């Protein structure tokens, strides 16, 4: 039944690509405006084979990795601290929400002023984007632990640390990992947006370069790479979830 649904999902994608290809050919649309999927595939293949894409993929991968690591650490740690302290939660949560309401793209020029060009501003941007879903999910999951289980741990004379590590975090792991799943997908957005403005290397920078040279098929090829990497990272987190839950 499940494999049948995969076949249908694949089939829908195939139909979409076929319609796209047909429309481009029938309407004779310029590749500058809308390249056909076969043209995009051709550019993608050539760029991968001649090694043109790999340094950019590696750069973005590095930024995404460090961004997720930094954002996840800050999000989880912040979530645990705010989840455990009602006082700190009421004091700091409005500022955390405020930091998320500010458009990240508007912050990118500021990050360049503060951190210069290159990897660092993009990592900071990615971390900032990853931070919130993890913090929010961690805070919520720590507050939603079954009160009877908290009483059980009290009855078993567990201290606050034991209650956190042996009850609250394992209880909320599903929700924390759901936040991580969202963060991983958003990390690619953060890295690409960071590279748009503050980098000359990476997949985001490559899109801007392709736009400058009117190379629309290359822009599409890079989009395909970013999407594939995003889906792969999402799938990896799902595998991780199945492994630990």
């Amino acid at each position, binding site marked *: 039944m499940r494999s049948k649904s995969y076949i249908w999902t694949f089939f829908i994608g195939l139909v979409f690509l076929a319609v796209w290809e047909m429309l481009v050919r029938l309407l004779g649309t310029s590749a500058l405006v809308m390249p056909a999927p076969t043209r995009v595939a051709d550019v993608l293949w050539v760029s991968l084979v001649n090694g043109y894409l790999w340094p950019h993929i590696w750069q973005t991968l590095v930024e995404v990795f460090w961004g997720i690591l930094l954002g996840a650490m800050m999000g989880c740690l912040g979530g645990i601290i705010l989840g455990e302290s009602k006082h700190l939660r009421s004091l700091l949560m409005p500022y955390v929400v405020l930091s998320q309401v500010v458009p990240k793209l508007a912050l990118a020029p500021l990050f360049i002023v503060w951190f210069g060009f290159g990897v660092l501003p993009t990592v900071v941007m990615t971390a900032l984007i990853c931070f919130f879903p993890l913090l929010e999910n961690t805070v919520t999951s720590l507050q939603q632990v079954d009160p009877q289980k908290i*009483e059980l741990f009290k009855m078993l004379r567990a201290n606050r640390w034991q209650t956190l590590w042996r009850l609250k975090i394992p209880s909320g792991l599903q929700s924390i990992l759901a936040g991580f799943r969202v963060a991983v997908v958003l990390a690619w957005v953060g890295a690409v947006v960071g590279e748009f403005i503050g980098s000359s290397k990476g997949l985001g920078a490559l899109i801007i370069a392709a736009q400058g040279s009117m190379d629309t098929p290359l822009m599409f090829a890079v989009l395909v790479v970013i999407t594939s990497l995003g889906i792969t990272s999402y799938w990896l987190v799902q595998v991780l979830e199945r492994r630990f839950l």
Partner: protein
Amino acid sequence: MNSELHIGQLEAKSQCLLRLRDVSFSYSDDIGTLHNINLDLQHGEFHCLIGRSGCGKTSLLKLAAGLLSPKRGEVFWNNQSLSAPQSDMGFVFQRPTLLEWKNVLDNVLLPIALHKKITTEDIEVAKKILQRIGLGNKYYKKPPQLSGGQQSRVAIARALITSPRILYMDEPFASLDAITREELQHDLMDICAEHKTSILFVTHDIGEAVYLGDQVSVMVKGKIHQTLAIDIPQPRHNAIRHSPEFNHYSATLRQAMEDTA
């Protein structure tokens, strides 16, 4: 005569595992939950608390376990004032409250694992208790793989792993079917007789209270309205549920609950 009485009182006091003296408790200033509760629980005694929903049975149980602190009065455990749960107490909640990510054995060993490294002897003891309550082949199952009755048994095994001197039980069989409930009642009585464990047991069910209890206290609106000694010899079997004494005690308790409704 006076000194004899004094010695008698001291003996009675020293035999009391748990004493509640003029205990009052409320969750907020307006809502009174318990008023002037006095209760004595002897070593090895099975004491049932019955009453309608919201009459304060669970609050009384939590006060007696040190999970709540009284607004007035005092709770004594082993003749010492009680302010927090003790290592020789066990608690079985209304729901089994098992940790879903741990297997049966790890759930049972949790009270030990929180305070020291688990030894092979601890594992053997846990396995023995699980075998005793009919879960000898479920050591490595996760709670969602067990039935409601099996989960309740695991919760009881977890409470027994530290060999507590008292077991607090808050309607532990309320959500089970009649047959499973009877089986667990029987197992509980056997285990407690073996280990001489005292039990404070909350229930809605008059029949369950008469079948299990040495003493049954009827609670009404936050007060203990009446305490009845159940003079049916132990060990008890299902046949006594149809005996005239059983019906007499059940009728008396029902009357006490209805009178005060």
